[in-house]
């Protein structure tokens, strides 16, 4: 890079404004507004070894200058002036009838002392006015400090591809500069890239480069090289991981007659020891970081800084007509790699292949441009429709995060097409489908099978239960008919109760003996029937003994004994009252109940 000193004069505000331009652009040219001239100071190197020569050039250019004095170079610390009289060169150019004269004064110096120094402002008189340049910093180095930096012997001329981003994410733009290094004494007359530079995994776009590469001085491993950026490419990684840029092949025309001041000055020149060589840069590996998907929103694979807009070409359309949904994405970044946002569109539309237009500007160090997607929608039915709001995400590599742009909902109306009211279909017939209006027969949609419902199993269990009951009854009746003992046992209680009822019926009819005889008959008959004993011929003692064995209940046995004894001895007792008879019948009935209960189990 050439350091320049600027013209300083406290003259007019307007002049100061004009000074800002060269400062920003780095050319170092000073424009004299009133006198139409430029003043430029340059130093040949800004890093110089002790004992090395260097030059400071003061260039005055303009069309209306009349008197220009020799520049007055003050003492420069750390360096010695080889000659107090500068060499002078003048060039005259005539463009469109306008003559411009440029005079360059060159002072030769030698570096003497190690350190950081400054070229002080240089004064010069132009048309009677004194102007000064800005100070220019420079550094003087000792050769021994840098000689053992790497230990690698660099060739006299070599090429490098230098990416400006170390760890990009997929889609992020990086600038790969093709930089040529060559030693002092080599002059580059021409260069021509060869085919074969592979950039697998990258989308590549050549940037519009400056016409004339500028060389600057650098020191590599203690050796002074000239460094010139020849070409620049914008590269966009398409995936994550380690991606390799292959060696860049380049044909270079060189001349080994050094022109210290302008190595590219002989592009169109000839003569000297000229030859043509082919060189290739070392492959470069780029580690591309993975990029997570956005948390929300539509991902369109955009990385950079963008603005996104969406619109419809009309708000009312007829069925069958085409409606255009236009999305415009504008900004800096991977414009060509951006995908179409997949909007959620309402049903009932025929969608045709979207149109895509891309406009890319490659000026400067970034890719700018506009990408437009035009989606063609053809509505099939009238109605009011709305394309819902959409949130689109793009990745901002500077902020290292996703940014979101919300596209508002778009509403439009579709009118029926004139003359298309009926459902018709060319030659395949027509049908007037009329909806069913009025009352509908509703039913509940059921996912349950019939057999999974409760009432199915209730209905199924009823006949099963009926079968079981019927079988039991059938068996019971069969036994009643075939098994006499069982029949006696089953009918014992009923028979006993009937006999007791007979006894109850004759109470108060002066048939006391008969009453007690019936009670005994009821009790004894019940015991005999239940225990399958002979119906007649059993003594009371035998009956009581059987009851005791069958029940094991001493109280009950005793009650039976007492009642049987009472029935047997009633002939010798005083005539009993009716109440006593009824009480005894009740008592007998209680005994029967208890016996029935115990003998059942």
């Amino acid at each position, binding site marked *: 890079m050439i350091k320049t000193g600027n013209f300083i004069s406290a003259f007019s505000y307007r002049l100061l404004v004009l000074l800002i331009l060269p400062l920003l652009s780095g050319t170092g040219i000073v424009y004299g507004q009133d006198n139409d001239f430029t003043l430029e100071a340059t130093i040949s190197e800004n890093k110089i070894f002790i004992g090395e020569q260097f030059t400071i050039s003061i260039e005055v250019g303009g069309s209306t200058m009349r008197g220009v004095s020799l520049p007055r170079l003050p003492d420069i610390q750390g360096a010695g002036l080889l000659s107090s009289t500068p060499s002078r060169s003048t060039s005259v150019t005539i463009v469109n009838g306008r003559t411009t004269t440029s005079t360059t004064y060159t002072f030769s110096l030698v570096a003497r002392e190690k350190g950081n120094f400054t070229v002080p402002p240089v004064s010069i008189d132009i048309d009677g006015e004194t102007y000064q340049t800005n100070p220019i910093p420079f550094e003087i180095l000792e050769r021994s400090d840098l000689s053992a930096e790497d230990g690698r012997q660099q060739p006299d001329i070599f090429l490098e591809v230098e990416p400006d981003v170390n760890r990009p994410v997929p889609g992020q733009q990086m600038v790969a500069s093709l930089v040529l290094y060559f030693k002092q004494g080599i002059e580059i007359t021409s260069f021509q890239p060869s085919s074969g530079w592979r950039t697998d995994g990258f989308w590549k776009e050549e940037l519009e480069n400056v016409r004339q590469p500028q060389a600057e001085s650098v020191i590599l491993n203690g050796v002074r090289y000239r460094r010139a950026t020849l070409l620049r490419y914008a590269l966009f990684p398409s995936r994550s991981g380690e991606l390799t840029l292959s060696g860049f092949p380049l044909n270079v025309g060189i001349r080994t007659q050094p022109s210290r001041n302008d190595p590219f000055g002989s592009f169109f020149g000839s003569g000297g020891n000229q030859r043509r060589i082919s060189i290739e840069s070392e492959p470069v590996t780029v580690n591309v970081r993975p990029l997570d998907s956005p948390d929300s929103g539509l991902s369109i694979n955009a990385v950079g800084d963008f603005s996104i807009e969406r619109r419809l070409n009309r708000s009312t359309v007829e069925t069958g007509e085409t409606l255009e949904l236009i999305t415009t994405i504008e900004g800096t970044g991977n414009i060509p790699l951006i995908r179409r946002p997949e909007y959620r569109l*309402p*049903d*009932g539309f025929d969608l045709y292949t979207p149109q895509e237009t891309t406009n890319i500007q490659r000026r400067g160090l970034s890719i700018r441009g506009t990408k437009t997607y035009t989606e063609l929608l053809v509505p*099939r*039915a*009238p*109605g*009011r*429709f709305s394309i819902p709001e959409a949130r689109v995400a793009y990745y901002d590599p500077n902020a290292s995060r996703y940014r979101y742009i919300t596209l508002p909902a778009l509403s439009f109306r579709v009118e*029926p097409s004139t003359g298309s009211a009926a*459902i018709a*279909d060319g030659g*395949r*017939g027509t*049908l007037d*489908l*009329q*909806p*069913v*209006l009025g*009352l*509908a*027969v*509703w*039913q*509940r*949609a059921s996912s349950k*099978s*019939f*057999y999974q419902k409760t009432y*199915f199993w209730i*209905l*199924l269990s*009823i*006949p099963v239960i*009926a*079968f079981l009951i*019927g*079988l039991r*009854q*059938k068996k019971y*009746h069969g036994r009643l008919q075939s098994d006499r003992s069982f029949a006696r046992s089953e009918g014992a209680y009923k028979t006993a109760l009937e006999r007791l009822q007979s006894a109850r019926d004759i109470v108060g009819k002066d048939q006391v003996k008969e009453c007690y005889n019936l009670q005994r008959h009821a009790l004894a008959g019940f015991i005999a029937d239940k225990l399958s004993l002979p119906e007649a011929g059993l003594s009371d003692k035998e009956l009581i003994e059987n009851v005791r064995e069958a029940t094991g209940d001493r109280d009950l046995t005793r009650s039976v004994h007492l009642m049987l004894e009472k029935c047997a001895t009633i002939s010798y007792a005083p005539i009993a009252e009716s109440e006593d008879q009824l009480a005894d019948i009740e008592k007998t009935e209680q005994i029967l109940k208890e016996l029935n209960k115990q003998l059942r189990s």
Partner: protein
Amino acid sequence: MKSSILPVLLLILLSPALAFSQQARFDEANFLLSQNEYYQALDIYKTIASDGFESGALWYNMGTIYTTLDSLGMAKYYFLQSREFDETKNEANEALQYVNERFDRRSAVLPQLPWDRFFNYLTDRVGPELLFILAFIFLYGGSTGLITSWFLTARSKWIRNTGFIMLVLSGLLFSAAFYTDYLEGRYLTGVIIVDEQTVYQQPDMNAAVISTAYEGYTLRVDAYEGATEEDWSYVRLENGMFGWIRDSAMEVF
């Protein structure tokens, strides 16, 4: 017990109101339909269906809208459902014929085996519910006859034989009902609703291609076989080929 009775009582009391609610919404949708507001009408129809109510008119009207919107696959899907209801059977058949004629591609149809045809008839025309009801009638009649014959002496043999025959018939009807219900649960009807969809040999987009199903193709969907694969269904095409298809490509009922 109380807690289970209360919701049942409420349901019984509110049933007419709920049905009325469906009818009111149905009328509203019909009005929108008459105003050519197809999508709004469709939204209401879908709400009714999602609430668990269905009717022939509902499916038929939805099919009508989709026919108008030129979504013939969807139209066929709804007309096929509408055909299941007596009140719209004729109209649905007519509409289906019309819709089928408008499809650009039609599948070759392999005739069904008599066995399949018989059970398809039972499934489509009779249904497992009716078979179960008939089976119960015979079961009750047979049980009554058999039990009665045990206790009656007069004509007991005739009654017993009749009861036995009825029980045998009941058993056959139960078997048919269960099998029909199994078929209904296992095999569903699917209709392709996208322009075209590839049928694969395996539930994998990279698997071998069996065939291509086009809009309006009717498929027999095996719910049991496809239950293990998410987003995929195992289907039998009308031409007898089997394969796997994406769920999103069809509607199933």
